[in-house]
């Protein structure tokens, strides 16, 4: 029997769990300021995330999906994008959104049940969070196709979770991106849990990166708790795509330290010991240890950063809580470019009903 094709899956990592160097740093990471910027973004993400959970617990926010422990994925990927690229995220990408310029007020409005939270003032072309799993992979392919057809040096960057890799549209998106050689990068936040289903019950594959092989595209695994590795893998993939080198699938191995969402209770299906072991590998402390060792970070800097981030988060929370709910007519706005005649009586009825509610209220 002849071997007609053979493959291997590579893993990229630079920082060990104690912040020690496992490999020579890539060029961008030799500048401590660049790493401090990533650290600051991850810290803001974590404090924002914790505050959002607290808001939900006190009835001031809807169901929220925490990204605790996965901050290196969003920050590492978004920081490797150019402004004119397009992010096509899922719903656990707070770090990526913040880096892209989505405001905390917008994110809180979204999770607080207000569509205006998807009307980003900053990244106007970025997609809003995608809730139906895997459906956004084909959007990213469509965006990348538009960029390629117009000859623009731009890249579509799609974020998904590990559960996504079980769905057909994940493969359909990768497959067409491969055939059409699209400028697209798909990053899997492999946090090991899709609600209550652990990775071993999700797939028999040894890695998720190898799902790229069947689609004929580049694939690699990175330590998703190592922001240097995530950024470097994303940077290489994005620049290759921009240069016409085709799509890449990046599997970022991390861990979901929190519940799936605030509506979930992960103690029902996983042990405290597992979570504690994973916590020791988390990305923010790891980078702090490296930066301290490199003389680029200190306890005083940490305190200043925490105070600054807390202040920014609290300011955003105040602004969010001060936004009045949309007027009932908003339901009928932006449904179509122009409200069809057939819908006008329903709009009027809704306004009358809302007026009646106000009178009774």
């Amino acid at each position: 029997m002849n071997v007609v094709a053979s493959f291997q899956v590579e893993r990229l990592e630079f920082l060990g769990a104690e912040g020690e160097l496992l490999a020579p740093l890539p060029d961008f990471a030799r500048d401590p300021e660049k790493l401090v910027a990533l650290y600051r973004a991850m810290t803001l993400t974590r404090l924002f995330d914790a505050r959002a959970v607290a808001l939900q617990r006190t009835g001031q926010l809807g169901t929220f999906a925490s990204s605790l422990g996965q901050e290196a994925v969003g920050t590492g990927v978004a920081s490797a994008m150019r402004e004119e690229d397009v992010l096509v995220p899922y719903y656990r990408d707070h770090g990526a959104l913040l880096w892209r310029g989505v405001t905390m007020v917008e994110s809180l409005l979204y999770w607080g049940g207000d569509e205006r939270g998807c009307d980003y003032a900053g990244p106007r072309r970025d997609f809003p969070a995608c809730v139906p799993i895997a459906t956004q992979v084909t959007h990213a392919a469509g965006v990348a196709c538009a960029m390629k057809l117009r000859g623009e040096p731009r890249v579509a960057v799609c974020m998904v979770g590990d559960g996504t890799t079980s769905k057909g549209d994940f493969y359909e998106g990768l497959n067409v991106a491969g055939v059409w050689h699209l400028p697209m990068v798909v990053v899997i936040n492999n946090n090991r849990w899709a609600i209550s289903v652990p990775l071993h019950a999700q797939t028999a594959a040894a890695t998720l990166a190898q799902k790229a092989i069947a689609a004929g595209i580049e694939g690699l695994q990175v330590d998703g708790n190592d922001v240097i590795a995530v950024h470097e893998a994303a940077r290489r993939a994005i620049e290759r795509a921009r240069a016409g080198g085709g799509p890449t699938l990046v599997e970022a191995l991390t861990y979901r330290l929190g519940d799936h969402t605030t509506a979930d209770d992960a103690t029902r299906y996983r042990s405290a010991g597992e979570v504690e072991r994973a916590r020791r590998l988390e990305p923010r402390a790891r980078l702090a240890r490296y930066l301290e060792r490199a003389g680029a970070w200190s306890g005083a800097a940490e305190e200043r950063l925490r105070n600054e981030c807390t202040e920014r988060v609290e300011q955003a929370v105040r602004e969010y809580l001060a936004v009045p709910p949309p007027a009932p007519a908003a339901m009928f706005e932006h449904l179509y470019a122009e409200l069809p005649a057939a819908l006008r009586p329903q709009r009027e009825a809704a306004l009358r009903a809302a007026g009646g509610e106000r009178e009774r209220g």
Partner: protein
Amino acid sequence: MAEITLVEAVNLALAHELARDPSVVLLGEDIGANGGVFRATLGLKDRFGAGRVLDTPLAEAAIAGLAVGMAAEGLKPVAEIQFTGFIYPALDQLINHASRMRHRTRGRLTCPMVLRSPCGAGIHAPEHHSESPEALIAHVPGLRMVIPSSPARAYGLLLAAIRDPDPVVFFEPTRLYRLFRQAVEDDGVALPLDACFVLRGGTDLTLVSWGAAIHETLAAAGALEDEGVSAEVIDVATLKPLDMATILESVGRTGRCVVVHEAARSAGFGAEIAAGIAESGLFSLLAPLERVTGYDVVLPYSRLEMQYLPGVARILAAARRAMKFQ
């Protein structure tokens, strides 16, 4: 002026928009070199190039999802699903994304796409090749559901669908693709969406239908004329949003109404029209509203499909019942 078939009219409209608007892109299975399994896209790849007419992998969810992504990024994709029987994987994209993109981003991102698909029974096709799922689409806020019933309306409505700033699902009745020819001028003039077409004026009875069933409905109206009954025929054309005003105005004059559609009866789109008449036109009715539809059965294989479809005899029987009712 050339006399062309409905499928040629589709081709003409696609070519017109490809030439007029550089952001228009076609995508679908076998639409390039093969010109589509019904030849709706015949010659378009040669004329406009592989960058405008894209043969996709065999993946319906991807076709719809690609269109959503392209549309949000500024193109005007016209996607083809080879048969409506294969549209269901694409419904996720239509319902969860295409219909909502404008609404959920407050107009920041939009989805000006068209999803074309040959629909309906009556051409002896294999199973899964003869469905009429327009009511599924018409249920979804944010979408438009359009079905032409003649070459001229196929041309004008498809132009309108492509130029519309929102997602339009455009079903093309396979039974009409080559059934008859009609003079169609390639003048680039779009027909209005969201409007019914009164194909034939009448004073005694209103027949409401769309798509391929219009053909039998018009034949029934002709037979009724021989019986001294003046039947008005309304082609709904755009099911969503529905121009109920035109139907109500007609029923207000005639007092009798028969709705004809090919899809199964229960929760078919005829029920929506009947409800609209019950809500806003009940007191103008002189007889119970009649529905002539496909039966609530699995669409039979081709040997029985003509017995399943609402034929002229069934329409006539319903119309006569409506006329006799005192």
